[in-house]
């Protein structure tokens, strides 16, 4: 089953949510963020270069210009490798666990798996983030010694930050799967 609706993240940029239900006990949610726009790259590059040129104009030192080129290249590489996330996915398999993975624009992927025995619940929580108060989806982990206590919280979709309507959709399907096992 494939579904596509239009959702936005907390800053009003559009993102897409892709729900794939593999079986009644297993489904995958992929939140995709639009790719880096060429215009934005141009603007940032222009800013750095104009600044560098202004400095060069006063100091007349060519090292400024070459370092500007270097900074732009390294900055872009670091950005696509560590900051820019293309899509984040959440794979919930009833009775087994939850796999959270995010793939960066450079192709790098990070994946973590949380066993079902460690998971207490999945909830939507509220938090203060920068100068906003936002909703986010998180996994509550059990304290090994005391099954009623919550030892820590793992936030999901950390870089895409979808809004509440998207979270509610994911939350409902997750709860359906978790409640079955």
């Amino acid at each position, binding site marked *: 089953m494939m579904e596509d609706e239009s959702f936005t993240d907390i*800053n009003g940029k559009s993102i897409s949510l892709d729900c794939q239900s593999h079986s009644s006990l297993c489904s995958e949610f992929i939140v995709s963020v639009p790719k880096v726009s060429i215009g934005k790259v141009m603007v940032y590059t222009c800013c750095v270069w104009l600044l560098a040129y202004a400095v060069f104009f006063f100091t007349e030192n060519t090292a400024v210009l070459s370092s500007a080129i270097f900074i732009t290249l390294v900055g872009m590489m670091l950005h696509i490798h560590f900051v820019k996330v293309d899509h984040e996915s959440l794979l919930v398999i009833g009775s087994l666990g939850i796999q959270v993975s995010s793939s960066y624009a450079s192709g790098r992927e990070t994946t973590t798996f949380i066993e079902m025995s460690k998971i207490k619940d999945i909830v939507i929580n509220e938090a203060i983030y920068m100068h906003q108060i936002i909703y986010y989806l998180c996994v509550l982990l059990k304290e090994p010694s005391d099954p009623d206590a919550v030892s820590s919280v793992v936030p999901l979709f950390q870089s895409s930050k979808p809004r509440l309507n998207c979270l509610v959709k994911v939350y409902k399907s997750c709860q359906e799967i978790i409640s079955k096992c």
Partner: protein
Amino acid sequence: MVSDFFYPNMGGVESHIYQLSQCLIEKGHKVVIVTHAYGRRKGVRHLTNGLKVYYLPLQVMYNQSTATTCFHSLPLMRCVFVRERITVVHAHSSFSAMGHDALFHAKTMGLNTVFTDHSLFGFADVSSVLTNKLLTVSLCDTNHTVCVSYTSKENTVLRAALNPEIVSVIPNAVDPTDFTPDPSQRLDDRITIVVISRLVYRKGIDLLGGLIPELCLKHPDLHFLIGGEGPKRLVLEEVREKYQLHDRVRLLGALEHKDVRGVLVQGHIFLNTSLTEAFCMAILEGASCGLQVVSTRVGGIPEVLPEELITMCEPNVRALCAGLETVIARQRSGSVPSPASIHARVQNLYTWRNVAERTEKVYDRVAGEEVLPLDRRLRRLRAHCGPVAGSIFAFVAVLDFLFLLLLQWWVPDWVMDVAVDATGPHGLWRQVPSSKVGAHSKSAVK
């Protein structure tokens, strides 16, 4: 409700906000409390009955009151006001910079505002002249002001140069079921005087330090129980040291609200030595526990209790000693009313339900009023607060408005998620299973 002062901090304002909110929720209103972060307690919390508290991470400057720059709190406050769909902003306590900030931003955003003043101020010294000016500015375009006693109303009206018609008096209350008398806890071979207050200058701890040795010398069976903490604890410790009264004067340190009753019921006489007080909840709690109350005649205290339940003295050591002597003599002769009868009289005098009802009326009235648009607000500021301060704050108001426009462009209102109501007409709280609420301090929103 906005105030710097809320739990886990302890005091009269905190419990006032909490109890009032609970009663308003009971009446079907949606209540959200905004305060600053206390240590590790920050973020969003839910308390009993779905009362939502925002602990915003703002810098604390002095005495648990946040630093005010008029602007830095706007983004977060706006976020709270927009997502919770607030209609009336109610700030508490004139010491709370955050409360004033919230009023200022709320007016910029076009929301109705109410302010509750909990304390009295002087007019003479430099600091009160400055605070009074700030209060004038803050209240000159606030829709309505609430004071806790008639003395406090008079004081606020004079300080802030307000129109008395927009100032209401709504007293504080006590929960009579929390403060019930229990004479079996008293020790019959002695007379115990209980003092519960913060040990600070305003509460007249120096007077207390003066009268303890005098009375202890005259009455060998007299004991003091003193609850509370503060800088003036030194004075009491000094007195205790000097007159060797360690077994008769017990300093209990800071008390939690739930322990107060346990201390009160051990005593025969409740003593309040405040030098300034707008309402004084403490004497009400003392009387509710069936104690004889002796207090200084200051501020709004004479309004609080009927004359036969309280002994008033002038705020000096000699008068207080004389007052205590007469009460001690009455206690010895057994001619005082029984604790149960005192409790029965007090329990219906001040209830939170009544407070909530009256506050509700204020809200209803305020919600119908129009909020001054920016140009009239500026004119009013300049006309009302003097040419210099008025112009400065008019300028600040314009900046605040521009900042708001910037924020509205940066993060438009439609981008913010509307919060799920826990309380109020569409409250979801009752559907949340109670076991789940207890399990997480940060509760899930369904």
